């Protein structure tokens, strides 16, 4: 059969399956923006593969008219790793959630990023288990009341971006489900990155954790709570862009601009920095409700560096061996070094 002619439209990427997320779920927006982002790539849909684990977000592949594999809980990066090693021509997306990716599948996420496997990993973070009907997750804030924590959760949350940076991911970014322009841009950047790309999306679970990201999505307050990163630009935020982040020794601090403090005093964002220290610092910033001088939470690309990619290194070793010793001779291999003949 023939390939669908390029460029694709978002509609070309929609499968014939009825989408079955709850009405109002943030996943709908992510699905729509993903189709938009991919349609803009000038890349054939038959070469795109979506691999997911288990959870609400992991139903995603069924709704994309690409190749797709809905696997088992937490393990999507493993299937994706094997696929990408053997089929470097494919663009492989991993769709996961906070429970799937950071609880049951934490190990695989670490190692996929450590290897710099060329995967685009999208983690839908809604800070709750949705498909199992509302238990707290490894990203839930302390005190989260859920079915399994009726008196409030007592465990501190993981920060997905910190995990990604510590795991040596070469592209790390964050966005939200409802900021559609930003979401499309981030997904496009991830698509273009060579190596392990990790994108966290704040995603609203309308049934079990509604409004948990209100501070980051409500237009009237979000600019006070979020800092949009731009490479080479100072870290500024606030509705009136009157706040910034400055380094005080090794510690970041929020400052009000004016009264002697200018853009020149602020930290300049460098997503290409080899040293991940500043990116890690950004990943640790958490908004403190009610605190006038609270850190904002960063949005955009924290880190985007070029490192050797796993499947290329695998192939490079094969090529080197062939160059050095010639292509394998199966008969010689079966025969081995020492034989004897019975007549």
């Amino acid at each position, binding site marked *: 059969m023939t390939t669908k002619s390029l460029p694709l439209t978002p509609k070309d990427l929609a499968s014939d399956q009825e989408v079955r997320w709850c009405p109002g779920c943030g996943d709908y927006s992510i699905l729509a923006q993903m189709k938009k982002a991919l349609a803009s790539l000038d890349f054939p849909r038959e070469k795109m593969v979506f691999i997911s684990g288990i959870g609400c977000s992991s139903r995603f592949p069924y709704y994309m008219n690409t190749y797709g594999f809905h696997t088992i809980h937490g393990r999507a990066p493993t299937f994706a790793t094997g696929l990408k090693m*053997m089929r470097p021509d494919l663009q492989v997306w991993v769709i996961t959630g906070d429970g799937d990716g950071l609880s049951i599948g934490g190990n695989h996420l670490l190692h996929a990023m450590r290897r710099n496997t060329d995967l685009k990993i999208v983690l839908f973070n809604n800070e709750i288990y949705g498909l199992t009907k509302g238990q707290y997750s490894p990203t839930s804030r302390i005190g989260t009341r859920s079915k399994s924590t009726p008196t409030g959760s007592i465990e501190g949350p993981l920060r997905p971006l910190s995990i990604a940076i510590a795991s040596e991911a070469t592209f790390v970014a964050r966005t939200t489900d409802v900021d559609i322009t930003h979401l499309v841009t981030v997904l496009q950047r991830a698509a273009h990155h060579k190596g392990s790309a990790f994108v966290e999306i704040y995603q609203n679970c309308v049934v079990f954790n509604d409004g948990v990201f209100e501070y980051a999505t409500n237009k009237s307050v979000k600019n006070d709570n979020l800092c949009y990163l731009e490479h080479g630009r100072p870290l500024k935020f606030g509705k009136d862009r009157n706040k910034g982040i400055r380094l005080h020794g090794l510690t970041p601090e929020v400052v009000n601009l004016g009264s002697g403090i200018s853009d020149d005093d602020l930290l300049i964002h460098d997503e290409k920095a080899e040293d991940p220290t500043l990116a890690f610092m950004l990943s640790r910033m958490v908004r403190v409700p009610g605190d006038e001088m609270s850190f904002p939470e960063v949005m955009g690309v924290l880190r985007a560096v070029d490192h050797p990619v796993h499947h290329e290194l*695998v192939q490079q070793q094969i090529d080197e061996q062939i160059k050095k010793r010639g292509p394998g001779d199966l008969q010689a291999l079966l025969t*081995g070094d020492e034989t004897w003949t019975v007549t």
Partner: protein
Amino acid sequence: MTTTLDVPKKEVAVEERDSVTIRLAGDSGDGMQLAGTQLTHTSALLGNDISTFPDFPAEIRAPAGTLAGVSGFQIHFSSSEIHTPGDCLNTLVVMNPAALKTNLKDLELGGILIVDKDSFGTSDLRKAGYKTNPLEDGSLSGYRLFQVPITSLNREAVAELKLSPREADRCKNFFALGLIYWLYERSLEPTLRYIKTKFSKNPSVLEANTRALKAGYNYGETTEAMVVHYRVGKAKLAPGTYRKITGNEAIALGLVAAAHATGLPLLYAGYPITPASDILHQLAEYKRFGIKTLQAEDEIAAIGAAIGASFGGVLGVTGTSGPGICLKSEAIGLAVMTELPLVIIDVQRGGPSTGLPTKTEQADLLQAMYGRNGECPVAVLAPATPGDCFAMTLEAVRLATQYMTPVFLLSDGYLANGAEPWAIPQVDQLPDLHIEHPKEHNAEVDGQPVFHPYKRDAKLARPWVAPGTPGLEHRIGGIEKQDVTGNISYEPANHEYMVRTRAQKIANIANDIPELQVNGPESGELLIVGWGGTHGSLLTATQRLQRKGYSVSHAQFRYLNPMPKNTGDVLKRFKKVLVCELNGGQLRLLLRGHYLVDALGYSKVQGKPFLVSEIEEKAEEILRS
């Protein structure tokens, strides 16, 4: 060189032997495995039939001199066809008291016992739990005891090289080996070649090992104590060119051959685990063949990567041992549900849990058959000998790719590390397993071409489409599938239909595999039944019983799910059926369940293979009753 070369040759008698079983035993740091491997290699090149049984502790270096640290390598070489590493030792070499204590019981009365006299000091004896010195207390009078000061003679042999005592002692395994080479008329050449290649970058070690080997040989030649040496002639194997092979080697070669035969790239993904790791090591060396390997972060990741490769349209293989299979079971279920080809190698070891990592057992059969949630049938194969691991690996790939199913290959620790002669296959005679992925749609809906990923062929296999194929984009997953379309379906009748269809697909494999072969008469009093790696012991026991005039035959299952079509018929033609297995009776349970046959069982669960005599005795007991 040592002066012994100049001593005039003594009178030596030569005795012919049909077959000989030798065990080299010492501390796990004494290099017994290496010496044993060299003896095997040399004997194979000499034209003997061979069968070996390496037996080593799980600890890399247990405390020196203790019973826990004893490592042994047993070899049976013969001028006639043999199938087992031998029940009873003709010759035992022990490098310390602990090795004597743990191995003496297997030495025949009157057998040759060579001990390193130097390592029988007070503390050595105490570590092994001896209250008196067995070399002096008369307890070894039933054996032909040769007390050889191996350590000191070896140090003397390498003295000119100015090695530290520690370095010098590292060669004493080769001194002992040299002595055995003299005793059994083996050529030094293959081992000298090995030493030359292995230590080419380290001239002093090369020289030390060479001297040690020669000194051991010369000691045998000159010492007055040894006046007989033994000759074991060439075996009358079928004409052809042979090499020595272990089960793990044969699996690795089988996978490379399968990649060739299918025309598909291969990914082997594993996580280090005894006794399967060698397959990963070996395949990692085969980059020139385009083989890709992944040492995954865990067992689950390994099988995930293999399934991901299969989804990509290439060969995905994972290998492990029992504990790894436990971790992989959910993913195996996914491969069953998504009907992707997958080869799962289980090199079985003693269980449950960590169990006996370096010892053999056959207790994963029911795990392979049933160890998953839901109705989840897979094909299960079990090679019978180290060399058969090659053929059955190709079979596993054939069935996996043609039936779109996971296939278990149940090897075991005994097959994995045991060696035998192997008739080298010709590449142009490998089976043609060529795969063509579908490129075209397979249905029309409203006049439009569509692709239905669960539309089956005559075998009930679904099409294996590789991502990247335009127009055939589709999604698969672990949720129940609607027949034909592969869409998610929770419909009750569809679920039952799909469960039955998946089962029928596996059952259909019975039409595509050889029948169960009976060794001996097609009917009679007793059928000795086994599966996988026990083949040699059961066949040898059967042949001995037949020679004694008993009405006994033997059948070995290499295909366990599905079983060969004639299984029920074969079982019914014998008055009694004895199922012998290295587990609590797992095949027996299956045979009784499937064929309503009142099969008797003989189980051994000691981490060791069957002795021929054990089977013989059990069968005679049944035949006489």
